[in-house]
């Protein structure tokens, strides 16, 4: 799903708080833009001091406030994390998000790794708010350790079942979340996956093997976010597509990772 309305504007920072070590939640005043955002879509956010804008998925969008959840991974996100107020240049909402229509008849299962939780959080909220989607979802969430698990309470609040794994065993199952997913997922489920490439590869393999429908949100280095630089090419069903414009969300059965 995608909205055709996109904006290249300056927005005011409302807050930018560290929610746990190295993870920040940025809230900006986005006016009417907030209502055009769909789960899985992203914004290119300008950070002073680095050349390119950073693509960051929408974490939540309420009234006129847009939220982003991000991890400090390099220079750009480092500078962004130190901004407590002021203004940011943003371009978006961009890309195609998750298809919610399919959820009407299937049980929805979200699989998240790391900050991949952000777009799935927005998805869970949208599913919770819309009447046709009566079923509660299940979240499978993998992280390195307990301290890397984000917003579990928010999923529980909206009635989702939460299954957690950590690589060091500090919370939930010890190991990868895909090990549990493989045992539990059924063809009556619809999968929504967002996370690092090794996790997505495994999710795609499981989904294809068990003939489970679903969507995977991909991540590639991108310069423009609108399809012009063609930096973020990806092979989808044998054709070259742009992660930023044709994705970042693609049908799992069409993804070749």
């Amino acid at each position, binding site marked *: 799903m995608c909205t055709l309305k996109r*904006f290249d504007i300056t927005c005011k920072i409302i807050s930018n708080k560290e929610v746990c070590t190295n993870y920040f939640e940025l809230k900006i005043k986005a006016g009417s833009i907030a209502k055009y955002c769909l789960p899985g879509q992203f914004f290119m956010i300008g950070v002073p001091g680095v050349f390119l804008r950073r693509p960051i998925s929408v974490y939540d969008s309420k009234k006129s406030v847009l939220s982003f959840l991000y991890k400090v991974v390099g220079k750009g996100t480092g500078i962004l994390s130190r901004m407590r107020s002021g203004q940011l240049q943003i371009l978006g909402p961009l890309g195609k998000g998750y298809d919610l229509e399919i959820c009407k008849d299937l049980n929805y299962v979200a699989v998240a790794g790391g900050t991949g939780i952000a777009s799935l959080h927005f998805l869970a909220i949208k599913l919770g708010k819309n009447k046709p989607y009566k079923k509660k979802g299940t979240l499978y969430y993998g992280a390195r350790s307990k301290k890397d698990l984000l917003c579990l309470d928010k999923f529980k609040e909206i009635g989702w079942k939460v299954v957690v794994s950590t690589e060091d065993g500090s919370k939930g199952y010890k190991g990868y979340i895909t090990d549990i997913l493989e045992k539990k997922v059924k063809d009556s489920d619809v999968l929504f996956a967002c996370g690092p490439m090794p996790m997505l590869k495994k999710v795609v393999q499981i989904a294809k093997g068990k003939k489970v429908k679903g969507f995977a949100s991909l991540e590639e280095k991108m310069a423009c976010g*609108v399809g*012009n630089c063609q*930096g973020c090419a990806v092979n989808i069903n044998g054709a*070259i597509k742009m992660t930023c414009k044709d994705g970042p969300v693609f049908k799992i059965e069409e993804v070749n990772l």
Partner: protein
Amino acid sequence: MVLCMKPSLAIDFMGIKLKNPVLTASGAFGYGYELADLIPLNKLGAILTKTITLEPKSGNLQPRIAEVSSGLLNSIGLQNIGAKAFIKEPLENLSKVGLPIIVSVAGSCVKEYVQTVEILSAQDTISAIELNLSCPNLKKKIVCHDLPLTQEVIKSVKKVSKVPVIVKLSPLVTDIAELSLCAQNAGANGITLANTYPAMAIDVKTFKYKLSTAKGGLSGACVKPMSVRCVYDAYQNIDIPIVGCGGIETGEDVLEFMLAGARVVSVGSASLVSPKILIKIISEIEKVLKEKNIKDIREVVGMLNTTKNAC
């Protein structure tokens, strides 16, 4: 009394009338029409498309881009849908904008350049061709580094082209002024200076190249002084107009290129970061001209470049 007269930005370029000297740069603005919802495209001087080849090209493997200090490295590999597909929907959409259209062309041999230009220049809506002779992303030697081949491509293309031909040169040559003269003598109607700079970056965390092809093309603010120098040197040696290109982010940057000798400019990396910067640049040019009390932008072209320098 004349109060704040609006300076004229209109400029004639190879016989094409432009409302201002700001063009998009090849490779940074897709097929030219895709951002119509984000910026008023008809405010630009002209639209220059990404490079089109005879057959479709799927481009290079990931990663294709890497950020560096004040710039961008790319190795896209000329991904495009090919000339025949381009003249259908993309060109039709682009034509609706109502601006002069310049199409960038590349080929793997003289014949390919010629065939592509034959197809494209036959389209009524295309105002000019820009030959990409300097794409540093192809694994083979770039055309610009082979003087007889450069001349052969230009001469052969000129024989078939129904529209003016601009030649985009690589800055990585021994003498850019001599190469520009060589292009002029072969029949070029204009020169673009300059393409991206061959460069590379290595990720020391992973001990891997930052681009799949190891080397790529450097663009962005960091290359601007080098491209201004290319324009300056070439302007002294040639009579055909120059498209200044490299790291332009503001109206002042545009005037810097024009003072050195560029007749028009093309903006690339900055428009990838923010499309609306193209419109902002145009209003900034107007502002600077007003401050300097210059009524016509044509006065600026080569204004500072009137004497021959030793080096």
